[in-house]
């Protein structure tokens, strides 16, 4: 990691050198070169805007040029109202941010890439309606008068470089704060993100707004560079070109975005001999990149020293004492509400869930007491995960009630439930595969980072740094407690399945939970490791004062781990009781012996 630290420093130094070189060259290049470099800078910022949206937050915009255009027309318009110079760009960018957020609004309600269609449709609206109206254009174009401090192309280039630098700093602050971590976790796993307290819809709209802001800055600079703003610069085709550039640059790689933006801005001039074929070359690269090299140019850059990989803090040098680690992530002492019988943490009454005509859960009642390890068993399709999802807020029960510490859980949105001290793992490991274990530890603590907001994140306030330091300590402590410190900087998808599950438990622990809900934590874990994990969980219950609800198929394992067991079958409660009682229950025995036969029947 010392290596990575050094890389980060070298990376920063390289950026400074690059900026310095361009600045120096300003003194002896022509105004025309200044103009060309200006377009490079503007394009780079536009591509960075798409990189934030698509690369960081996993959302799509097929109409990004519209936001660049709004920034350009906005800045031009504000200039005619005698708004002083740099402020025109900022106001234009804020306008673009606002409209981008509106266009991204459907992402509040829908998952996946369907928003792509609204952004594409908006691109057409901007091209054929917004930019073609008298309020944006005067006989097809708006003239921008440069202020006396930036009269030449080279001066505009200089302004552009400053703009690029500011955007890069904002981008860095976003990546290294809870703002960006929310983006990443929404991109990779919306359900996990929500379970960790991320307001998924709001996060997506925020990404659209940020992206619109970047794009607007690019547009404002473009207006001053060109001095006339006209609709043909902001067509749907420009937007699609931006998508090509960001994909080829490598989604999520800011340096790739800059390099790719620079190439896109200058390629027609560099290859003027075969200019006709440039679009087809770009298109082929866009087609092949996702298939052959999903990391795009970022793949090459990642190997060089240009990209500081995620800053790393898993230093071996100051290893944590285990006892200290446990102290760090122990849950805050919460007073139980008086109206609840003292030992009950989670009470579910007559919970029923229906999907269309299918009954997934039928009148299930359950109680989890403080300090207990409770098992939940039953064959596939018995409704175990559905019950977890009802507690977590991913499905809405049609009947019944679920209370946690006397609070009505069903009245709370999904993301708010994390704040109550409930942490869960998912049947399909709920971690961000492409990110490192360390980053996942940080993502997980979203709810805890509540101590600072957007402004603190952008300005890197002392408060933000204190909170971040605490989160890092907690992350390290959780890894220490689970015994995964060796894998801190490994990407999750490179871990064995068992270790992925352990990492997910560690991530859940980092949030300082009171109730830990584990969905098949032993699946894919070898028998020896399973026993170790079970042993560790029992110890943690003591050390961290944890309450655990665990779904598991392996009946002997559950029996050894739990003090009370519920058995579901076909959506209903089949049996409950002590491990002995449940294991000797005739219904349970017949279900478990009968299961393989049923499975075959289901496949036929």
């Amino acid at each position, binding site marked *: 990691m010392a290596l990575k630290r050094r890389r980060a420093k070298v990376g920063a130094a390289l950026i400074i050198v690059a900026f310095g070189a361009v600045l120096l060259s300003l003194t002896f290049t022509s105004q025309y070169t200044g103009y060309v470099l200006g377009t490079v800078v503007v394009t780079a910022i536009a591509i960075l805007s798409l990189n934030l949206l698509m690369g960081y937050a996993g959302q799509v915009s097929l109409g990004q040029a519209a936001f660049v255009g709004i920034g350009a027309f906005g800045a031009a318009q504000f200039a005619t109202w005698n708004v002083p110079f740099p402020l025109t760009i900022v106001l234009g960018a804020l306008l673009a941010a606002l409209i981008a957020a509106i266009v991204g609004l*459907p992402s509040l309600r829908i998952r996946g890439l369907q928003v792509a269609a609204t952004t594409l449709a908006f691109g057409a609206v901007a091209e*054929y*309606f917004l930019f073609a109206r008298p309020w944006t254009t005067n006989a097809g174009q708006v003239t921008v008068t440069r202020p006396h401090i930036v009269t030449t192309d080279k001066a505009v280039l200089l302004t552009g470089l400053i703009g690029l630098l500011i955007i890069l700093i904002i981008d860095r602050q976003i990546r290294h704060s809870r703002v960006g971590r929310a983006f990443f976790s929404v991109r990779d796993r919306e359900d996990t993100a929500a379970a960790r307290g991320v307001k998924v819809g709001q996060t997506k709209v925020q990404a659209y707004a940020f992206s619109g802001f970047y794009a607007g800055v690019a547009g404002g600079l473009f207006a001053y560079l060109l001095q006339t703003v006209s609709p043909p610069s902001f067509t749907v085709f420009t937007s699609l070109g931006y998508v090509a550039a960001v994909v080829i640059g490598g989604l999520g790689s800011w340096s790739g975005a800059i390099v790719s933006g620079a190439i896109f801005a200058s390629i027609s001039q560099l290859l003027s001999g075969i200019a006709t074929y440039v679009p*087809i070359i770009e298109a082929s690269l866009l087609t092949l990149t996702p298939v052959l090299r999903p990391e795009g140019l970022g793949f090459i850059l990642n190997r060089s020293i240009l990209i500081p990989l995620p800053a790393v803090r898993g230093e071996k040098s100051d290893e944590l004492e285990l006892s200290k680690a446990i102290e760090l992530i122990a849950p805050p002492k919460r007073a139980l509400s008086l109206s609840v019988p003292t030992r009950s943490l989670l009470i579910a009454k007559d919970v029923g869930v229906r999907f269309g005509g299918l009954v997934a859960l039928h009148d299930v009642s359950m109680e989890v007491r403080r300090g207990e390890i409770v098992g939940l068993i039953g064959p596939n399709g018995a409704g175990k995960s559905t019950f977890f999802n009802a507690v977590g807020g991913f499905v809405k029960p049609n009947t019944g009630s679920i209370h946690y510490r006397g609070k009505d859980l069903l009245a709370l949105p999904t993301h708010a439930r994390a704040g109550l001290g409930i942490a869960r793992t998912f049947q399909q490991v709920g971690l961000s595969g492409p990110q490192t274990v360390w980053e996942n530890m940080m993502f997980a603590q979203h709810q805890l980072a509540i101590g600072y907001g957007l402004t603190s994140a952008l300005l890197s306030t002392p408060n933000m740094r204190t909170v971040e330091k605490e989160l890092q300590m907690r992350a390290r402590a959780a890894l220490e407690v689970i015994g995964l410190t060796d894998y801190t900087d490994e990407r999750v998808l490179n871990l064995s399945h068992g270790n992925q599950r352990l990492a997910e438990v560690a991530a859940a622990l980092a949030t300082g939970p009171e109730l830990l809900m584990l969905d098949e934590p032993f699946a894919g874990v070898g028998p020896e490791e399973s026993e170790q994990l079970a042993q560790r969980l029992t110890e943690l219950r003591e050390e961290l004062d944890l309450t655990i609800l665990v779904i598991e198929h392996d009946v002997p394992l559950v029996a050894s781990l739990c003090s009370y067991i519920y058995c579901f079958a076909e959506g209903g409660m089949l049996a409950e009781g002590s491990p002995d009682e449940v294991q000797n229950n005739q219904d349970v025995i017949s279900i478990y012996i009968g299961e393989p036969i049923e499975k075959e029947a289901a*496949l036929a």
Partner: protein
Amino acid sequence: MTAIINGILSGSAYSLIAVGFVMVYKGSRIFNLAHAEIGAFGLFIAWYLQQHKTPILIAFVIGIIVSTLVAIIVERTLVRRLVDRTPLAALACTLGVAFILASYEFIQFGVNIKTFPPPFGTFSFNVGNLTVTSSRIMIFVFAAAVAVGLAIFLKGTKFGLEVTAAVSDKTLARLSGIRVDRTRMFVWALAGATSGIAAMLIASVNTFTPLSTTLVLIRGLTAALLGGLTSITGAFVGGITIGVVEALVTAHTTVQGADYTAVFIVLLVALLLRPQGIFGGSEA
């Protein structure tokens, strides 16, 4: 009234695009941004042949075959490698395909405005004071036939059910003897054919250039989303809805781009109020 009939007729063109788009989405869970362009490619080939004295009906059939082949090639060479990747990767890749086809059309055939004759001859009849031409009625007939045919095919035949099963649970489908890859290829081929038909019929009503496909795609996508993205009937109704909205808007205002704006607003509001679309349900 005239506007509504007009809207239904032009909307059925969007329906035809949307239905194919929904097919691909149902059959491979891929947001195929190249869908309209695959059809347009067939159109350009047919147009070229027609310009060189090929009878229009033969050109029409060749156009359909070309679109089908392009769809199959795209499925076999690219989509197959992307089904297990992130949806974003597939979206970017299909966008690239659309780009390649459009750039090729651009280089080969130029930007100038082109016309394509109605494949089924020219005739017309009057409804009130509205003259309905052969190509416009043919679009409607084709769109309705394709939508009904596909709906029956997907719900009523064994192979159709396999298509849906292949997407909802790949492993289970494989275990039950469904050849997932073959099913997906078939769906893509079918969608390619409908896209080709749609492109040629739309071109026989309007003029076209290599740049006009995107605008068709926008309406097709919007129609598919209004319909809930997985419902053939929904896509059909969605297309008609857009056609009517556009026709009503253009009948009442001459402001340029007002039709796109109306479509965009309908889409935005519809997605916010009813994100699952008009016909989208819990259906996988």
